[in-house]
């Protein structure tokens, strides 16, 4: 197997045109999988290590959108003042992802393209309305994250295409952001259930919009419009959250696996909402 190290976007796009080419970002998932199950069709790994254009964070559209280079590591983002100040729910998710060395290696783009139902950054990025920038030899295109994720391990990424950046609209500072993950331990844990929430309130504290997304309870990131609708118009109180939690728990259809039973996941799916009362 060959490993290529493009240094800029034209070189990257060219490398991805090689037959049997595949992107190597942080390697924390791909190299484990390849070792367990070598892929005979895979001839070339294209490392993003040296493509400087894929790193870094920048404000766009007069301060309303954060453009995150897809090969930025979780640790780089966790340390970034704008991520911490304006996207606390993403920072909370990054802080629970893997372990310090995994966060030093793994990338945001890698977490997205792995498309795990338990991917820690996916629920926050979905409720924030992230848009992806994809590049190939035929140009660039933009796609909402919600349309990019097709199923467990499946995305809309085409052969020869790379995820180059993630554009995250910045919620106004008054919006409430929350992320919580329940795992078997604090570090290096695959989520048993996770929840990201973005809640906006109006004049008298009434909720004007609620965006909720759960990880690890469905084949993809799970949304529950009925629970969101149950919150709108009410104040962010325990009783309002209890109604939404009952709706979420009754509608979710999780599976039992090595990490938890379906019943436990169903309870936690609702119960995680109750934490919003403390916001």
């Amino acid at each position: 197997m060959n490993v290529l190290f493009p240094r800029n976007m034209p070189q990257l796009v060219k490398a991805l045109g090689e037959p049997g080419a595949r992107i190597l970002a942080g390697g924390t998932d791909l190299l484990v999988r390849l070792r367990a199950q070598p892929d005979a069709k895979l001839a070339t790994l294209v490392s993003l290590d040296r493509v400087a254009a894929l790193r870094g964070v920048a404000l766009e559209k007069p301060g309303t959108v954060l453009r995150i280079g897809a090969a930025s590591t979780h640790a780089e983002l966790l340390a970034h003042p704008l991520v911490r100040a304006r996207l606390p729910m993403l920072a909370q998710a990054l802080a629970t992802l893997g372990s310090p060395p995994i966060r030093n290696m793994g990338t945001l783009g890698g977490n997205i393209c792995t498309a795990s139902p338990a991917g820690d950054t996916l629920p926050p990025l979905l409720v924030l309305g992230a848009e992806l920038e994809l590049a190939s030899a035929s140009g660039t295109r933009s796609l909402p994250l919600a349309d990019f994720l097709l199923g467990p391990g499946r995305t809309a990424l085409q052969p020869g295409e790379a995820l180059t950046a993630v554009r995250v609209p910045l919620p106004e500072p008054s919006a409430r952001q929350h992320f919580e993950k329940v795992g078997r331990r604090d570090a290096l844990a695959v989520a048993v259930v996770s929840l990201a929430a973005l809640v906006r309130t109006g004049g008298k504290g009434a909720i004007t919009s609620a965006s909720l997304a759960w990880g690890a309870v469905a084949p993809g990131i799970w949304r529950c419009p009925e629970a969101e609708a149950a919150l709108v118009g009410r104040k962010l109180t325990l009783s309002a959250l209890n109604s939404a939690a009952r709706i979420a728990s009754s509608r979710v259809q999780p599976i039992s696996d090595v990490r938890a039973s379906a019943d436990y996941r169903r309870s936690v799916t609702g119960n995680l909402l109750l934490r919003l009362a403390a916001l």
Partner: protein
Amino acid sequence: MKLAFTLNGALVRVDADPDQRAVDLLRELNALDVKEGCGTGECGACSILVDGVHKLSCLLLAAQLHGRELTTAAGLGSVKNPHPIQKAFAEHGAVQCGFCTPGMTIAASALLAANPDPTRDEVRQGLSGNLCRCTGYVKIVDAVRAAARKGDGGEA
């Protein structure tokens, strides 16, 4: 593939298969302080510093090492001239079977470089990617706190 990198201060030139894992290449180069535990990024035994950043050599390809500056536990200090973290591990009985120790000291040096005076909880979080199957965590945390109090910034 011809590779050149710095290993514990010495320039290394080697011809390696690009898809060989870094942990295997380093051990072939006699860096036997780099251990392989799980091989899947969950135990931290193969921890090294790459340009000062704590990474796992079981999840790096040899080709990715080209041009980098690598530090393994043996590069932190020697038996004659141990790093303050290594000295503290010895003094606090933070070594039982010793298999996790090289990775633990690498993780600790990365932690102290970023946070020179961590709380016990911060030490536990900083070492959370490293497992000790003897479960000697209390003494390991003691040792890292002691090394921190001696004012060492964790410079590798």
